[in-house]
């Protein structure tokens, strides 16, 4: 099944994501301080850290939902400089290569599940309605939600909505996927449905950057773990190693707090 989800979604190869010397401030508050990360094509990076550490802001800088003050972002062959003026074309180009999944799903409540997944394909990739809907149905089938196609999102559970949101992003053939605490709004049990889909995606070779508090997912699925605090990367490396032997005291405190929950 894992290969199916990715082959259905991937007609293009996964891209690497490189962030170099990224900084961002809100007024005097420096939320990101000179962050550099290199995410290899097809790899999974987990971003963890206490709230307010800047991990969500970092994620949102990658597709320019937040505008960084300094630094560069490269996705595949598209590079955006923070200080340079970004043309609308470059902006859309970047966003079209990167899919994003939000904590609060953000499905379009006035459209059916099918239209949620098909409409962006029509507008962005110029697919015909039939083509887009056929593709939407295939992908919904892969995550076990084909029977929900003609319902509205408010008739779906949180876990179902999040899987639909993932499918909506995948339908556009992204080259990398960003996940912003995708299971934080869900009951633990329901979260598992979503994590299962993410595991499939990872197994299929999608480049993924995941902000999460799911330590087991981070340990089992991610190739690289980045620990952030106060706008800095305080520690990074192989997930199992960091979780077993954190070097920084701050990491140790954070991990024990999260694992004890």
């Amino acid at each position, binding site marked *: 099944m894992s290969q199916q989800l990715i082959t259905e979604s991937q007609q293009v190869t996964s891209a690497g994501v490189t962030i170099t010397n990224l900084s961002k401030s809100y007024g005097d508050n420096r939320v990101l301080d000179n962050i550099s990360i290199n995410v290899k094509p097809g790899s999974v990076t987990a971003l963890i850290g206490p709230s307010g550490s800047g991990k969500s802001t970092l994620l949102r800088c990658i*597709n320019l*939902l937040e505008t960084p003050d300094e630094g560069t972002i490269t996705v595949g062959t598209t590079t955006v400089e923070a200080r340079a003026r970004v043309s609308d074309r470059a902006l*859309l180009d970047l*966003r*079209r290569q*990167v*899919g*994003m999944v*939000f904590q*609060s799903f*953000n*499905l*379009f*409540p*006035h459209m059916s599940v099918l239209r949620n997944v098909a*409409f*962006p394909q029509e*507008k*962005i990739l110029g697919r015909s309605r039939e083509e887009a809907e056929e593709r939407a149905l295939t992908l919904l089938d892969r995550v076990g939600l084909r029977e929900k196609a003609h319902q*509205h999102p*408010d008739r779906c559970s949180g876990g179902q909505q999040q899987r639909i*949101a993932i499918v*909506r*992003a995948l339908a*556009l053939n992204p080259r990398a996927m960003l996940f912003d605490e995708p299971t934080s709004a869900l009951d633990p049990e329901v979260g598992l449905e979503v994590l299962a889909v993410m595991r499939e995606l990872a197994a299929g070779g999608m480049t993924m950057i995941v902000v999460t508090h799911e330590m087991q997912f981070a340990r089992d699925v991610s190739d690289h773990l980045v620990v952030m605090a106060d706008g800095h990367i305080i520690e990074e490396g192989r997930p199992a190693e960091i979780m077993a032997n954190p070097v920084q005291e701050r990491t140790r405190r954070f991990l024990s707090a999260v694992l004890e929950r």
Partner: protein
Amino acid sequence: MDLVQYLPQLGQGLLVSLQLTAISVVFGYAVGLLLALGVSSQLPWLKWPTLVIVEVGRGIPSLVVLYVVYYGLPSIGLLFDNFAAAAIGLTFTVAAYSSEMLRAGIQSVHRGQNEAAMALGLPQTSTFTRIILPQGLRSSIPALMGLAIQSFQGTSLAYSISVSELMSNAYQSSSITFQYLQIYAITGLVFAAIAVPSTWTSVWVEHRLAKGFA
């Protein structure tokens, strides 16, 4: 019961009132949407003039607007017959009020909707027309329905510039028969007969929307 003979006249008046309502609501809401967009604009040269239009439209009583259009504008060469003057004046007032309702509706759309559309890479225009506007309109519907009922009642002001709408025909009928109480009571009932069920409908719609769109 000689009152019955005046019913056709009241009926004709009602028809004119309904026409005025339809015109002021259809055009008023359309102009209102444009004004709402103008007020929400980032461009100062667009934002401030539209804001002034909206505040003037909401600040000046409808009756004064009708007098300005009907008696005032001819002095700068703009001459309208009474029906057209009433339609223009009421449309202006409805546009000003509806623009604030539409703006509130559009602003009430969750920020995440815009972010999701941006993250997908949807262009700004389709984000607005296909994602934000439909949801904003939906949440403005209860207020807009209330305004439609008010503007139906407000058409009685057109009496003051001699439009033969319901109120004016009632006045004529009663001035012939001197049955003021009876005729105005009937007139009031006719207004209520339209307005009250409309209000019920709008409450029903509001409940439906709230239920299906949490």
